[in-house]
């Protein structure tokens, strides 16, 4: 069916390989792919980040991400979407999240990719703890 979307959602402790992920949702009918890669910075302000620790309410996070992909598919003309988020310890320079959207049109690919990362950050039950040499903080927890 032309109007179906291929999608792939994963939460996992393993490192994310971009080329592997692309293979999961590629097709020969789409000219445009937009990717967003969120990587772990080695600093927050002036504090050195040693590692991140991600935790998720896994079944709900997966279903919320699938709902976002369905919304993106209704709003924009996209053919496939992949959202892969790390769990557990993630070290600086590693990929924490990868989003891939394919479409026949680059406009839709960009806008849908942006939509997915923006909404993921707003509503998907995943939490990030930043660990420094001298302490740790659950990001965004306090006012």
């Amino acid at each position, binding site marked *: 069916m032309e109007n179906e979307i291929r999608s792939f959602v994963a939460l996992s402790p393993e490192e994310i390989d971009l080329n592997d992920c692309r293979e999961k949702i590629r097709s020969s009918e789409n000219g445009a792919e937009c990717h967003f890669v969120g990587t772990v910075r080695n600093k927050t302000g002036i504090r050195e980040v040693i590692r991140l620790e991600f935790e998720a309410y896994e*079944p*709900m996070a997966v279903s919320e991400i699938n709902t976002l992909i369905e919304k993106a598919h209704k709003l924009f003309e996209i053919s496939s979407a992949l959202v892969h988020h790390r769990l557990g310890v993630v070290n600086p320079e590693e990929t924490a999240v990868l989003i891939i959207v394919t479409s026949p049109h680059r406009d839709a690919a960009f806008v849908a990719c942006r939509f997915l990362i923006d909404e993921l950050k707003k509503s998907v*039950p995943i939490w990030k703890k930043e660990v420094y040499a001298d302490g740790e903080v659950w990001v965004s927890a306090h006012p």
Partner: protein
Amino acid sequence: MKILFFGITKEIVGRSELEWNGEIPENINSLRKILAEKYPAISGLKSIAFAVNERYANDDQRLDSKDVVAVIPPVSGG
């Protein structure tokens, strides 16, 4: 009723889940008040959302003894 805690609320409460053996609160708002009283540090957070059976729930959602309720501190994925 089962209650799940994540992120900073798991640290505040000291456990990731608990079996609610008392009277079932009328709705999410009642549960919110009970938790705030029992764990004052929760009130210091930016916000708390709730999910019932893996879906976000409003404050007026009624609760049942078979529900799985999740306490959701501010999310910070990505």
